[in-house]
C-alpha cells in the first residue's frame, strides 16, 4: 500500500505519454491521476494514524540492505499535501495550458514531479532520497525550460545550475557517510550515528547535509536562486514548485536533524537558527521592495521557510509540532497564492502591481476567494497563518528563546505589511486604466476556492490538526518507533 503514492503518478505519467496528445484526454487523465494520488495518500495516512509507522521492504529484502519505504506521521501527512496540491494543479490545467507545453508532455511531467516529491517523503534510505531528488528535479527542469523568452531561459539555467551543485554536495555527503558508517539506510544510520560522533566526521557530514538541503529549501545565504527563477514559469507550474519543492528540502532537514543530529553540538543548531533568522528578515524585507506580485510571493516563500527551520532549530516537541503545522499551512497557502497570480496574469497579462488594482471592484468573487490565502499568509487572526505563527511563538517562548520569539513577531509584522501592501495595490487600489482582458476562468476559481476551503478547514480544525502534528513531532523525537519499525520490518 505504501508504494501507491509513487505507483499512481508513475502509471498516470506512462498513460499520459501514450495517450493522444490532445488537450481533453491529457487533462482528464492527469486529473484522474492526481485524485487517485490524493486518495492513496489519504489511505496511507489513515493507516499510519491508526497503526503507527508503516514500512515496506521492496521485494522483502531485509532492512539495511534493500530499498525501504517508510511512512511515519510526518511523511504521511506531507504526501496528503502532495495529493492536494497535485489535484489543484490538475484542475487549473482545464482553463488552458500553453498548447506547445501540453504537446511536449506537460501533464506527464507534472505527474513525474508529484511522484518524485512523494518518493522523497516516503523513502527510508538516503541514497534513494538522492534519486528521488533527481527525479523531481529533472521533471522540474523540463517544466521550467519549456520556455521562450530570454528572462525565462536565464531563470531556468540558474535554477538548473544551483540544483545540480546542491545535488553534488548531497552526493558527496552520501559518499563520505557510506565510507564512515557502511550504510545509507536512515533507521540503521540513526542507530550507528553515535559511533562516529567521536571522529569529527559527523560535523563535516552535518555541514554538508545542511548546505545541500538549505539550497533546496531556500535558506540564507543560499536562497538567491529562488526569487530569480520562480516568477518566470507559468503560474500553475510556479504553484507546484513553490508549494512542494522547497518543502522537500525542509522535510529533509527535519529528517536528518531529528534522526541523526539530535545530539550534535549546539553550534549546529545555532547555525541553523542564524541562517533561519537571516532568511526570515532578508526575505520579508526584500519582499517589501518588490513591485511584482509574483516576486513578492517568491520572497514571502523564502522568508516563511525561515519560520519553519527556526522552529526546527529550537528542537522542542512544541516547536517541532508548530513547524510541521506551519509546513502544512504554507504548502496550501503559497500554492493558492501562485494560482491567484495566475488569475491576475489571465486578467491583466501582468503581475506588476502597476498594472493591477481595482480587482475588488471588477472581480468581487475572485477577490473574496483570494482574500483567504493572502490574509492567511499575512497572519491575520483567526486564519491558519496566525495560528501557525502563534504556535511557533509559543514554542520559542516555552524554549526560552526570547530573541527568536521577538524576531518571529517582528517578521510577522513585516509579513503583514508585505501582504497588506500587495492586497491594497492589487485589489483595493484605484486600479490602472487597464480593463480585464479575459474572464478569470472557472477551473482557476474552483481550485482557488478548494484550497481556500482547505485553509479554512485547517483554521477551524486547528485543534485536531495540532494534536496530529504534536504526535508527529513526538514520533520524530522519540525515533525508537521509526527505527524499530524499519529494522524489524514486519512486512
Amino acid at each position, binding site marked *: 500500500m505504501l508504494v501507491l503514492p509513487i505507483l499512481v503518478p508513475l502509471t498516470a505519467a506512462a498513460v499520459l505519454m501514450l495517450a493522444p496528445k490532445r488537450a481533453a484526454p491529457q487533462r482528464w487523465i492527469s486529473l484522474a491521476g492526481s485524485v487517485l494520488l490524493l486518495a492513496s495518500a489519504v489511505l496511507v495516512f489513515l493507516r499510519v494514524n491508526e497503526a503507527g509507522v508503516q514500512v515496506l521492504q521492496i521485494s522483502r529484502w531485509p532492512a539495511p540492505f534493500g530499498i525501504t519505504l517508510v511512512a511515519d506521521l510526518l511523511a504521511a501527512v506531507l504526501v496528503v499535501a502532495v495529493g492536494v496540491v497535485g489535484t489543484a494543479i490538475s484542475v487549473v490545467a482545464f482553463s488552458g495550458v500553453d498548447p506547445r507545453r501540453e504537446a511536449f508532455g506537460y501533464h506527464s511531467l507534472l505527474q513525474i514531479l508529484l511522484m518524485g516529491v512523494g518518493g522523497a517523503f516516503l523513502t527510508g534510505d538516503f541514497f534513494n532520497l538522492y*534519486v528521488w531528488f533527481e527525479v523531481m528535479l529533472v521533471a522540474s527542469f523540463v517544466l521550467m525550460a519549456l520556455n521562450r523568452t530570454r528572462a525565462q531561459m536565464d531563470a*531556468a539555467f540558474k535554477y538548473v545550475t544551483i540544483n545540480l551543485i546542491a545535488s553534488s554536495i548531497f552526493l558527496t555527503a552520501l559518499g563520505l557517510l557510506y565510507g564512515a558508517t557502511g550504510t545509507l539506510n536512515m533507521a540503521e544510520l540513526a542507530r550507528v550515528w553515535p559511533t562516529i560522533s567521536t571522529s569529527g566526521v559527523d560535523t563535516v557530514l552535518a555541514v554538508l547535509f545542511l548546505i545541500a538541503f538549505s539550497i533546496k529549501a531556500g535558506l540564507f545565504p543560499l536562497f538567491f536562486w529562488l526569487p530569480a527563477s520562480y516568477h518566470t514559469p507559468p503560474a500553475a507550474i510556479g504553484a507546484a514548485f513553490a508549494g512542494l519543492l522547497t518543502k522537500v528540502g525542509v522535510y529533509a532537514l527535519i529528517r536528518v536533524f531529528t534522526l541523526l543530529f539530535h545530539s550534535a553540538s549546539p553550534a549546529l543548531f545555532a547555525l541553523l537558527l542564524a541562517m533561519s533568522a537571516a532568511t526570515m528578515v532578508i526575505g520579508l524585507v526584500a519582499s517589501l521592495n518588490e513591485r511584482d506580485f509574483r516576486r513578492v510571493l517568491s520572497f514571502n516563500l523564502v522568508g516563511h521557510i525561515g519560520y519553519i527551520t527556526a522552529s526546527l532549530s529550537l528542537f522542542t516537541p512544541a516547536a517541532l509540532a508548530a513547524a510541521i503545522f506551519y509546513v502544512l499551512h504554507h504548502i496550501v497557502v503559497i500554492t493558492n497564492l501562485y494560482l491567484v497570480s495566475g488569475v491576475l496574469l489571465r486578467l491583466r497579462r501582468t503581475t506588476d502591481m502597476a498594472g493591477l488594482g481595482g480587482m475588488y471592484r471588477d472581480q468581487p468573487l475572485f477577490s473574496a476567494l483570494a482574500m483567504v490565502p493572502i490574509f492567511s499568509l499575512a497572519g491575520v487572526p483567526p486564519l491558519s497563518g496566525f495560528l501557525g505563527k502563534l504556535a511557533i511563538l509559543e514554542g520559542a517562548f516555552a524554549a526560552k528563546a526570547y530573541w527568536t520569539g521577538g524576531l518571529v513577531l517582528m517578521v510577522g509584522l513585516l509579513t503583514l505589511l508585505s501582504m497588506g501592501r500587495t492586497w491594497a495595490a492589487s485589489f483595493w487600489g484605484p486600479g490602472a486604466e487597464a480593463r480585464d482582458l479575459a474572464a478569470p476562468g472557472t477551473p482557476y476559481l474552483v481550485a482557488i476556492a478548494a484550497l481556500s476551503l482547505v485553509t479554512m478547514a485547517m483554521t477551524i480544525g486547528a485543534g485536531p490538526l495540532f494534536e496530529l502534528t504534536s504526535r508527529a513531532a513526538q514520533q520524530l523525537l522519540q525515533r525508537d518507533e521509526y527505527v524499530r519499525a524499519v529494522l524489524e520490518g514486519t512486512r
Partner: protein
Amino acid sequence: MEALLALASGVLYAAGIYLMLRRRLAQLIIGLGLLSNGTNLLIVTAGGLTRARPPVVPEGAATLVQPYADPVPQALVLTAIVIGFGLTAFSLVLAHRVHTTAGTDDIDDVGRER
C-alpha cells in the same frame, strides 16, 4: 592508492568549481561534469578500495572471506554516473536553447533584454 584517488577527486572538485565560476555556458557545463565525476570518484574511494577481490563466495566456503570489494559503493556510483550523464545531456540541450534564444553564451548577458 587512496591518497592518489583522494587527490584526483580534490583536483576534479577544484577544477569543476573554477570552471563554474566562469561566464561561458560551455565552461559551466564542463565544470558541472567535472564536479559530478569528482563526487563519483570520492564515493568509490570513501567506500574502500580492495583490489582484485570480487565479492564472490569462494568454492568450498559458506560465506565471503575478508577482504573483499564492497559492491554497494559500486552500485551507488553506477547510479550516480547514469544520473550525472542524463543531467549533463539535459544541460547541454538547455545551453543550446539558451544560445539560440539569447544569441549569447555569456551567462550575465542571457537575462538582459537588448
